[in-house]
């Protein structure tokens, strides 16, 4: 496998312009004959599908939910970044670029990140034109707030429902095309194989989850926009159905998987309540604009009513350790600091695995109404879950798995290492390095879909105008469908003793304990064996109910967990291989008094893994990261 990132030559700020100027075009009459498959209808998928159809391509979109509008992007709360500099506070494309590279602990590509910052301004314009009701100031102009890891206010938002509003904007643009007949929507369809012919992506196999039928679909190009794999941890802030299946199947067909160990643990989530817990709920990072994070100075105070603990007996540890960013320190750093405080025995709540997020000062300073206006729905959500009123008593929060920076390796054009197969949004690895800054995933998803793919896919499809739609009885389609069929039959035939959730929970615990917020060589080595054993046991002892030819959520879940059991091992192997600490990847052996210690000499690369066969070691390819415009520095927020 040879990985070519295809980064255009020339000065950083001219690369994208030059690329667009040189890209091949497809004439309108030919576009109609070209078919594109988009798997996923989140921000990345819906925006791409709408834009492709507007350009004139024929598009098919798949999602596992009943409606495209329910993709997991809907749950994003806090906001979306853009280098508009409407606040006149010193923001610029360059500053957003720099913050993102630094936020990612210098493990992402300069050219991709620069392009992201460049197109970020157009996203806001596009969304407003679609009628996305962003928050506004009294003068009628758009409002902004701050997110972690930056010192400017560049985050656009719609109360605590920004993802919902952006997704409904993209969804409405896509549904307009559905009405026009240029997009065909396949809800309740799950992709289970990529079909390749001579190493080129030519379609997919999808299962209609209502009747269990397997369907073959041809495309001149296939775009995966299937989101992140955070659910490998069992407990995460992701929706229950989020999965790695599509990306993993692409990986097995030759798409390199990049930086799988780079996962983001978000510092502010509602803590785990009991062992029946099915998922965790995020409390948006925007809360850190006004909330102050603390734990008691003394262990003895941990069980006291927080309101009775005197000011001098509180440790506002982020403000203390990182005075220039304070409560807005980036996520990886804030999460680790919370873990440290709890490990020292200063955690609060019943489990001792929580810290306070306190709004008392903010309510005093700004007033109850102002706080309610900014965070009302988040406070309500917290109250719903915990039965406690955050206007009166500090929230209790703890870090939880939230986002995966790793994903399918893509080049500058967002093409994977399989020709004609693209990956966009959270399912690719491209822009966030070892840690993503808040409000940047929505930005990336929409950048990929609205502004990057529409250009880059044309450059590829220009060479496809003579390819006739391939017969669905082609052996490649038949074989791919058989693989899926056999797999489902196998899952149902085991009739073992342990449920799918049993296995998933156990896998999640292994990954969380050994490949979570702190990782060691010893722990990872042990965990690898544990995952291998668990996987073997799964295929011997799993109990899946129902049949293949009906609506069967248990079977769908089993297929997803089977893939997580393979991905989990690769995450561990990747974490073992990366003998440094950077961003969310904290190897206890490599630290400087609790701060991550990078090793740029040996590890300034993207790890891209090549699949070699079931239960075989994968091959590591290194894409060296070249920094021409910024100097690698120790990442400090002090």
């Amino acid at each position, binding site marked *: 496998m040879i990985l070519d990132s295809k980064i255009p030559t020339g000065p950083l700020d001219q690369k994208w312009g030059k690329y667009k100027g040189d890209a091949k075009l497809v004439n309108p009459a030919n576009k109609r004959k070209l078919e594109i498959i988009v798997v996923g209808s989140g921000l990345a998928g819906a*925006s791409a599908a709408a*834009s492709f159809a*507007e350009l004139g391509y024929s598009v098919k979109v798949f999602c596992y*939910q*009943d*409606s495209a*509008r*329910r993709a*997991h992007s*809907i*749950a994003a709360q806090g906001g979306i970044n853009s280098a*508009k500099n409407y606040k006149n506070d010193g923001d610029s494309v360059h500053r957003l670029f720099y913050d993102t590279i630094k936020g990612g602990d210098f493990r992402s590509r300069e050219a991709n990140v620069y392009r992201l910052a460049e197109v970020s301004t157009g996203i806001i*314009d*596009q*969304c*407003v*034109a*679609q*009628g996305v*009701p962003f*928050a*506004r100031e*009294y*003068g*009628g*102009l*758009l409002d902004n707030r701050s997110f972690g890891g930056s010192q400017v206010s560049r985050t656009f938002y719609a*109360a605590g*429902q920004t993802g*919902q*509003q952006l997704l*409904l904007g993209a969804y*409405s*643009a896509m*549904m*307009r095309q559905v*009405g026009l007949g240029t997009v065909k929507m396949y*809800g309740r369809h799950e992709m289970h194989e990529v079909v390749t012919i001579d190493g080129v992506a030519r379609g997919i196999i999808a299962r209609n989850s209502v009747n269990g039928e397997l369907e073959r679909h041809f495309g001149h190009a296939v775009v995966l926009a299937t989101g992140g794999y955070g659910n490998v941890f069992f407990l995460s802030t992701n*929706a*229950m159905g989020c999965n790695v299946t599509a990306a993993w199947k692409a990986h097995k067909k030759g798409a390199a998987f990049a930086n799988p160990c780079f996962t983001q643990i978000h510092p502010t989530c509602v803590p785990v*309540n*009991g062992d*029946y817990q*099915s998922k965790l*709920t995020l409390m948006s990072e925007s809360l850190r604009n006004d909330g102050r994070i603390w734990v008691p100075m003394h262990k003895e105070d941990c069980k006291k009513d927080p309101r009775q603990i005197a000011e001098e007996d509180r440790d506002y540890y982020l403000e203390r350790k990182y005075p220039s960013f304070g409560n807005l320190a980036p996520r990886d750093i804030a999460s680790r600091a919370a873990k440290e405080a709890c490990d020292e025995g200063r955690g609060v709540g019943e489990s001792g695995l929580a810290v306070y997020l306190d709004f008392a000062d903010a309510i005093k300073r700004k007033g109850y109404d102002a706080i309610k206006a900014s965070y009302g729905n988040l406070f*309500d959500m917290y109250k*719903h*879950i915990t*039965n406690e009123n955050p206007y009166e008593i500090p929230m209790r929060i703890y870090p939880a798995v939230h986002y995966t920076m790793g994903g399918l390796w893509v080049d500058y054009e967002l093409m994977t290492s399989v020709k004609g197969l693209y990956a966009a949004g959270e399912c690719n690895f491209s822009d966030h390095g070892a840690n993503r800054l808040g409000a940047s995933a929505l930005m990336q998803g929409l950048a990929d879909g*609205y502004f990057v793919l*529409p250009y880059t896919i044309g450059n590829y499809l220009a060479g496809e105008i003579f390819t006739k739609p391939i017969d669905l009885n082609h052996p490649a389609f038949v074989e791919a469908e058989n693989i899926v069929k056999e797999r489902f039959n196998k899952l149902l035939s085991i009739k073992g003793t342990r*449920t799918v*959730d049993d296995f998933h929970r156990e896998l999640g615990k292994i990954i969380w304990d050994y490949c979570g917020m702190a990782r060691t060589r010893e722990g990872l080595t042990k965990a690898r064996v544990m995952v291998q054993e668990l996987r073997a046991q799964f295929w011997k002892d799993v*109990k899946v*109910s*129902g049949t293949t030819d009906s*609506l*069967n*959520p*248990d079977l769908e879940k089993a297929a997803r967990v089977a893939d997580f059991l393979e991905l989990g091992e690769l995450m561990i192997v990747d974490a073992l291989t990366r003998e440094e600490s950077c961003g969310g990847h904290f190897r206890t052996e490599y630290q400087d008094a609790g701060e991550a210690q990078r090793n740029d000499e040996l590890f300034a690369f993207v790890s891209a893994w090549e699949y070699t066969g079931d239960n075989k070691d994968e091959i590591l390819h290194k894409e060296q990261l070249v920094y021409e415009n910024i100097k690698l520095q120790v990442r400090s927020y002090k």
Partner: protein
Amino acid sequence: MKFTLQIWRQANNKAQGKMVDYQIDNINANMSFLEMMDVLNDQIIRKGEEPVAFDHDCREGICGMCSMHINGRAHGPLKLSTTCQLYMRNFTDGETITIEPFRAKAFPVLKDLIVNRGAFDNIQAAGGFISVSTGQVKDANNIPINKEDADMAFYAAACIGCGACVAACKNASASLFVSAKVSQYALLPQGQTERNERVLAMVNQMEVEGFGSCTNTGACEAECPKGISISNIARMNRDYISAAISAK
């Protein structure tokens, strides 16, 4: 806590369905309703039977996927919440809880508690958008919008498309859902150009899909987990009449 659950079981779209009783014990009050359903399904699977199929995804009240009719109410007893936002502490120990799918002609049952809400997507495709393609649009701040209008548009846009309004309505009308989308755009300057065509197309599609008509009972507003206001329906009706007149 312990409960008797009476749950609608239906093998598929064509099968005859019926209520089936289940007993469940050792339920923690802080469990969410869907976690209680997980526990039930776990027990059913271990017995070798088919678990209860239900829709859910985000489990935080925003995706609109969950859709249970609990004790005769869409999304159960708690105001302003979805099924996934219910906790067992919202019920009484020993209670009998009935759980059914959302019922409406336009929402056929696919299996157990899962219904097909594709009709909503069809209404959206008929006109629920502003026709602007990706690319050359104005700078966002060139369209100043009065904060009050922007906020009102946002409240309407907060609809999660769950269908509780339809399930709660004795006529199975989709007026609250449709009017929320119509209003969002009607309140914004960007939405004015297509205002008439939009309301006509969406309302007509609503009828084509087999939803009933609105008789202003207000049941939809009362059960809406997002508190979408019935005043949107009045706005839609006004717009519809004036659009119909100007179309003649």
